């Protein structure tokens, strides 16, 4: 197991490097020169000083060197834990991104936990009572959910619950502008702000997860050992909830590994609508300001997240399913 994990981790290294080369090259090949965006020259500043500062910027990122040198320079810094500085926020990228990632993590943790708590029982009951009213309802629900653009759904909820009914705050993550709230109040306030964005994400992810749990449960129900259990004369309850249930949970690992990266990139749109200060917000803002160190770091974050989730999925299978042999 340990050996396998190590080998998989080693396999990841070239993949990460290739992805970073591709993203780096694409960003650097952009037709705009970044120093024009990054270094402001107010009219009262002399042309000479402006040029000097822009040149200093170019030197800092080695922009006058050939592309491979630039890449190696960046990569060397990353290996030393230095992702560069955000020009706009004047802060190391790692700190900045770390702060915003935490906000996205809060949101997405709530979403993942809630959507699993709902989708596992619903999916299993749907499978056990296939073609019942309950099952049909969730089938239609999930098709609707898959087709609903989640930003449109977000706007509808925002319109109804914040604007018309006034039940939830309009946007942001907190209304504690003065910093006077205690920890408990802050928590309640954050939750209050989270209700709408989280509901949108939960409902749209339920569409996929319910379907998935249902079909994996259906596969299990149709398998031979369930027929054996039934023919032994076990009660339906025992068959479903003690024999089938546990095995139906195995593919849910896949779901988790699949959900995490999708959620993080899918929440970009929702964070935009509700002005939730997460990584989606910072990515879009940095793109608009051409703050490339941040954009590069964000893209690498998403890529590594997807790769690691994939690895965890494979390892998770090996842990819970004795039929899976790693080699």
């Amino acid at each position, binding site marked *: 197991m340990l050996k396998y994990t190590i080998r998989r981790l080693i396999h990841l290294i070239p993949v990460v490097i290739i992805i970073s080369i591709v993203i780096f090259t*694409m960003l650097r090949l952009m037709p705009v020169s970044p120093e024009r965006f990054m270094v402001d020259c107010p009219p009262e500043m002399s042309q000479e000083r402006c040029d000097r500062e822009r040149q200093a910027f170019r030197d800092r990122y080695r922009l006058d060197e050939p592309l491979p040198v630039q890449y190696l320079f960046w990569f060397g810094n990353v290996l030393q834990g230095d992702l560069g500085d955000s020009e706009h926020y004047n802060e190391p990228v790692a700190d900045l991104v770390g702060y915003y990632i935490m906000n996205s993590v809060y949101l997405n943790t709530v979403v993942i936990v809630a959507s699993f708590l709902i989708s596992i029982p619903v999916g299993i009951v749907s499978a056990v009572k296939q073609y019942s009213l309950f099952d049909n309802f969730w089938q239609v629900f999930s098709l609707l959910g898959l087709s609903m653009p989640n930003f449109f759904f977000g706007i509808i909820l925002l319109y109804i619950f914040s604007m018309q009914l006034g039940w939830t705050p309009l946007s942001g993550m907190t209304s504690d502008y003065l910093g006077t709230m205690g920890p408990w109040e802050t928590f309640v306030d954050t939750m209050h702000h989270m209700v709408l964005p989280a509901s949108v994400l939960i409902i749209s992810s339920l569409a996929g997860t319910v379907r998935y749990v249902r079909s994996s449960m259906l596969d299990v129900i149709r398998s031979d050992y369930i027929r054996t259990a039934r023919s032994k004369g076990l009660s339906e309850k025992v068959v479903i909830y003690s024999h089938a249930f546990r095995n139906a949970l195995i593919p849910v690992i896949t779901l988790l590994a699949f959900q995490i*990266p999708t959620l993080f990139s899918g929440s970009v749109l929702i964070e935009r609508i509700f002005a939730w200060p997460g990584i989606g917000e910072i990515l879009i803002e940095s793109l608009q300001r051409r703050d490339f160190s941040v954009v590069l770091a964000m*893209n690498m974050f998403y890529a590594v997240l997807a790769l690691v989730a994939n690895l965890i999925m494979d390892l998770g299978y090996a842990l819970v399913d004795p039929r899976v042999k790693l080699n």
Partner: protein
Amino acid sequence: MADKKNRKEQHYVAEDQIEDLQGKELSAEEQRRLDEAREKELERLEREDVVISPARMVWNNFKARKITMIGAGMFLFIILFSLLLPVFLPEIETDMANRRVGPSLFFWREGHYLFGTDNHGRDVFLRVADGGFVSLYVGAVATFISVIIGTIIGSVSGYFHGIIDNILQRFTEIVRAFPFLPLVITLSAAIGADLDEDERIFLIMVILGVIGWTGLARLLRGQILSLREQEFILAARAMGVKNFQIIAKHIIPNVISLIIVSATLQFAANILVESGLSFLGFGVQEPGNSWGLLLRQGTRDSSVIQNQPWLWFFPGLFILATVLSINFIGDGLRDAVDPRNVRR
């Protein structure tokens, strides 16, 4: 009963004729008779419906489900609405006298608009009809690109396992690890900054197509890995048919249903991504027009969302209806092509 017997006799006659004439030097007259007999035979098969063709079976399955037919109807309506209707409608004009007019059911009267008007007095109904074209077009072309790439990579990878498969698998893995939405946003912001409208639309199609093929490739590879071990492929190989011909003539026809289903679902997903991109401001921009862009303009700030809901509601509704109808069709197709559901 008598009719059936009669037909059976005819059938034997036809078969005898074909057998008699085969393998001989044929005069023009005989050739004509052979062709005629063959044609009759085909006609008979069709009439008696002895074996229904796969396409027939799929169609029968497809139309047996009410929901897929509803989806098909909805989609047809949307196609007509956004491809045909704009041809007959008047040009979109700004009309400062009629700005921010709410929607009204009496749209034929002066100063009334079915979907209302925007801040420049443009008729939202006309803009929604017009914007559909770009949304559908981008989705369709992007799907086409990704289906081509996915089919080639998936079938080559499944057919030639071994080193080629290994290389292609690593390649697929890398493309899969690219963060889809963030990367698309980054790319269209990075490359698209200096482009004009048509080039931007082209760029978005290419980006979506070039990143979106991995699902289909994996699906096909799995299918083809088992297909390639079957006898008819073995026979073709033993006869010395070239590898690429085997793929094109024997393998692809066997997985074409999978490709169609996956393309349908991909089409729906691409429409969603395009609208999301335009909504964020990284897709279609003014003076272009698409449903995502209309949604963006209708949600510029919270007062617009609150006071002019028709600006965002109708474009959003059309995205939802389009994607929903395509998903209905895709779902129906998936069940229809499954040979386990034979319906005559």
